[in-house]
């Protein structure tokens, strides 16, 4: 029971400060769940994230997998609801009171102020993930995927398949 409350508290807080989405909060989840609370290992953390990337669905699903690993199905549901609930309610509030104000000055200011923050946090997540493997081929895969997705409109699933094969052969 206790661990469920810990998960709920962690993700409830994250829900309201996760500027840039769930992926941008990945380093914070790592800091709390792996470094501070030792609820799972470095490797497990990265592997569960990889599994979520190879599954269909919204990116935030990896939160459910972390919860599942730590406390089973109950942990998965509590974590996911805690991560999405408060932000969802905030979104509903904005929709209720603020729909149609996208061109107001305050909105432009908020967007311009928060987007750079999101970008910095997203890159922090990428740095965290790149530490998973020291092999040059892993770095190559990262560069390949970043450059391909910048140049072409391509379903990322193809790149994920390439990553799985190259890694499965023991090269990454």
């Amino acid at each position: 029971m206790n661990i469920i409350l810990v998960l709920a508290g962690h993700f409830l807080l994250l829900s309201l400060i996760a500027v840039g989405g769930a992926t941008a909060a990945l380093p914070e989840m790592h800091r709390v769940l792996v470094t501070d609370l030792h609820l799972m290992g470095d490797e497990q953390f990265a592997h569960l994230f990889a599994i979520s990337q190879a599954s269909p669905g919204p990116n935030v699903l990896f939160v459910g997998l972390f919860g599942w690993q730590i406390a089973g199905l109950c942990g998965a549901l509590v974590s996911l609801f805690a991560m999405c609930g408060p932000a969802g309610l905030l979104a509903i509030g904005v929709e209720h009171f603020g729909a149609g104000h996208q061109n107001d000055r305050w909105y432009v200011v908020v967007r311009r102020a928060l987007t750079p923050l999101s970008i910095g946090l997203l890159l922090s997540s990428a740095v965290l993930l790149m530490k998973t493997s020291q092999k040059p081929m892993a770095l190559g895969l990262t560069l390949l995927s970043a450059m391909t997705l910048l140049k072409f409109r391509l379903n990322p699933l193809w790149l994920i398949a390439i990553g799985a094969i190259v890694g499965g052969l023991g090269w990454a």
Partner: protein
Amino acid sequence: MDDSYKVKPAELFLTFSKLGLLGFGGVMPWVYTEIVENKKWLTAVAFSELLAMGQIIPGANVTNFSAMLGYRFCGLRGAAAAMLGLFTFPLGVAIGFATLYQHFGHLEVVQGSLRGITAIAAGLIISTGIKLAKAQPRTIQALVSGILALVAVGLLKFPLPWVVLTLAPLGLFAEAKLTR
């Protein structure tokens, strides 16, 4: 703006279930095709406005988007239906994969594959960051704020709450002063 009669919660649930299961590596491109082009629930402009709103609210973007769209069509029940649709089946699939991982995760080939996928995912995130940056006005305050966030969280491993609660107000203050 009389959209309210058009869509029922059950239809929202089914539509977002389908989108959740289609969306590998991000659901948003599918959401656009389905909501704007196929179902015509929103115009392209209304879609990008709603998406932009979803992005400045903390938390998962596509979840916020589905909550707002569901609420617009049929209130709280609609918001719940859209969000639950998005999660329920994909969570089942992901837990299925994770169960397989518990049984076979010790195999070197599985560990290697997951390392490969992680490397690809890092690149995916970098490309998202660069795309976002390209769409931003190039200002000093944006550059400073982005670099501070990267250094504080990525290198110094400061707790995110402190970083956000420090940098967000500073960024807002700077933008409010400097943006006209």
